[in-house]
């Protein structure tokens, strides 16, 4: 991934091969999430599960723009970010099955995915919970003079909570190298944006702190990637934090099994038909049916293998629950 980023940097544009690679990763996230839905419905997966179907371009576009040493904090809808940041499907699926081989060794689950070695400071099940810590991580980088950026993902629902406002205020005040990525999917669980926010343009909330903002179409991975690079370059060059506003869509419910009584079947059909980032990228890249089928089969194999890996994983002993409480 690093060499790829370096190549992209040199050319300043994405080749068809690179975009095809982005597409493949987005497809992997999609198929992974569909498998998670399937296994949850089969009764195999414990816990609360939130899939990111529809938001794959945000995860891949942003994470591909990151550099080695950069860190992220994610949300309860974390599978896509986690895969895009480099955690393997096997490690992620094993975590969802509560196995020791999982990326949080069975202590976290879907809403608490960590991979410190790969720069994932953790998914957070408290909406807005990770944002102040991203400000703090960026402060540490600044105090030590390191050329690293800390980046937080969050949704439109999080822009109403105090941690959002306090974290952005502090980040801008202290000019720390942080990027705040709003995945504006229009829904706070079941509550539509017009019911949870009095303004339509949520970037204004960051502008109110004097923060640089960048907007991008979150369904276009190339646009997301370019915007993220710009945001990261800005933050890395000590020009202060950036608010990256990605317009996206949640194609599925809040959680697996959500009957979505709050939105019409027509709307659900419409977003799937017109706002699917995979369909759009496939058309743009003119991926043939044959090429797609081949890629899809390969991705399915990877996902199926992750389920096998997870099911064959090691259960923790009950008393392992007493470990890791203190360092």
């Amino acid at each position, binding site marked *: 991934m690093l060499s790829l980023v370096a190549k992209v940097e040199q050319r300043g544009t994405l080749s068809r091969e690179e975009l095809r690679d982005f597409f493949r990763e987005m497809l992997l996230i999609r198929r992974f999430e569909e498998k998670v839905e399937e296994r949850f419905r089969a009764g195999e997966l414990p816990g609360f599960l939130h899939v990111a179907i529809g938001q794959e371009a945000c995860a891949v576009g942003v994470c591909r723009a990151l550099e080695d040493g950069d*860190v992220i904090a994610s949300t309860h809808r974390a599978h896509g970010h986690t895969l895009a940041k480099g955690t393997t499907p096997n490690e992620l699926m094993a975590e969802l099955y509560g196995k020791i081989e*999982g990326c*949080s*060794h*069975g*202590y*976290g689950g879907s809403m*608490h995915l*960590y*991979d*410190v*070695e790969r720069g994932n*400071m*953790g998914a*957070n099940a*408290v909406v807005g*919970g*990770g*944002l*102040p*810590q*991203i*400000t*703090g*991580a*960026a*402060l*540490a*980088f600044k*105090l*030590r003079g390191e050329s690293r950026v*800390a980046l937080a993902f969050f949704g439109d629902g999080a822009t109403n909570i*105090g*941690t959002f406002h*306090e*974290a952005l*205020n*502090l980040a801008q*005040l202290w000019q720390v190298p942080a990027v705040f990525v709003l995945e504006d999917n229009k829904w706070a669980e079941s509550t539509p944006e017009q019911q949870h926010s009095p303004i339509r343009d949520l970037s204004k909330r960051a502008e109110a702190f004097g923060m640089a903002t960048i907007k991008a179409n979150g369904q276009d991975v190339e646009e997301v990637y370019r915007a993220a690079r710009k945001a990261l370059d800005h933050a890395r060059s000590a020009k202060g934090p950036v608010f990256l506003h990605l317009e996206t869509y949640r194609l599925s419910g809040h959680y697996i099994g959500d009957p979505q009584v709050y939105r019409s079947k027509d709307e659900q059909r419409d977003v799937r038909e017109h706002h699917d980032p995979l369909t759009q990228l496939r058309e743009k890249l003119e991926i043939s049916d044959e090429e797609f089928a081949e890629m899809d089969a390969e991705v399915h194999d990877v996902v199926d293998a992750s389920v096998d890996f997870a099911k064959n994983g090691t259960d923790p002993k009950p008393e392992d629950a007493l*470990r*890791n*409480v*203190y*360092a």
Partner: protein
Amino acid sequence: MAELSYREAVRDALTSAMRQDDDVFVMGEDIAEMGGSMGVTQGMVDEFGPERVRNTPISEMALAGAAIGAAIQGMRPVAEIMYEDFLTLATEQIVNQAAKHRYMSGGQVTVPVTFRTQGGSGWSPGAQHAQQLEAWFVHIPGLKVVFASTPTDVRGLLWSAIYDDNPVVFFEHRTLYGVKEEVPEELEPIPIGKARVHREGEDVTVIATGRLVHEALAAAEQAAESGVSVEVVDPRTLQPLDEDALIASVKKTNRCVVAHEAVTRMGFGAEVAAVIQYGAFDWLDAPVERVGAKFTPLPFAPIMEEWCVPHANDVLAAINRTVGRNGN
């Protein structure tokens, strides 16, 4: 030996750590030029500059969270929460985040952050600036909790808190800042999890924290005049708790009083009483007595405030009850 006030002892621990270690820095409201609401960090900005003695907005969620994030990235921040009451604003970050990152990550994350705060009665600030909330945090697995009562203890324990790899909530009592004590020239770290026997005695053990350690020592003096020998023990660290030391003391004296300024109901003393009755059941000659504040928010009028919180005479009365000399 040098004489230091409790306030100077806190400052000495912070300064000593910051001199030897670039990873240590302090942050909080009004801590730079003003030197903190209690004057603890006075003068530190002159030595270390505003990057390391970092003023924050009135923004407890962000300042607590930022300290946690910096700690996860390898710093050892000390965040000052100006008043203990304002811990409530930072509680989400301390309880859901700092306390649980290591656990939820299966041991990958380390959070070496210290939250210093102060509170307590005595100055009549009313119900939102004088609470004693230490018991809340003892209830949270993943946090360590310290409550130091003397200059020596506060200096040595704060040092250990800063260098502990876990989040530590560090309580100071407002009325102790002026208390002076002879302390060693060189800072001597005090291990977290070790109680201190302030006074040895034979008849009753008083297990006290914070301001009540001093009230208990005064009560012990008075009890001695009537022939009752009182042992005073300060756990100093509430989590982890030095259960062995507390149980050993009660096995020697056969009677126990627990005393703190926080309200008695569900206070830290309730846990201590449970530990003692289980660990020293066959040695107890009297029920464990609890001394704490009345179950009310702290009132403003000084006459009411003083009545609500315990003093030496309340500890003495409890001591007398355990030896069958009640009548009051």
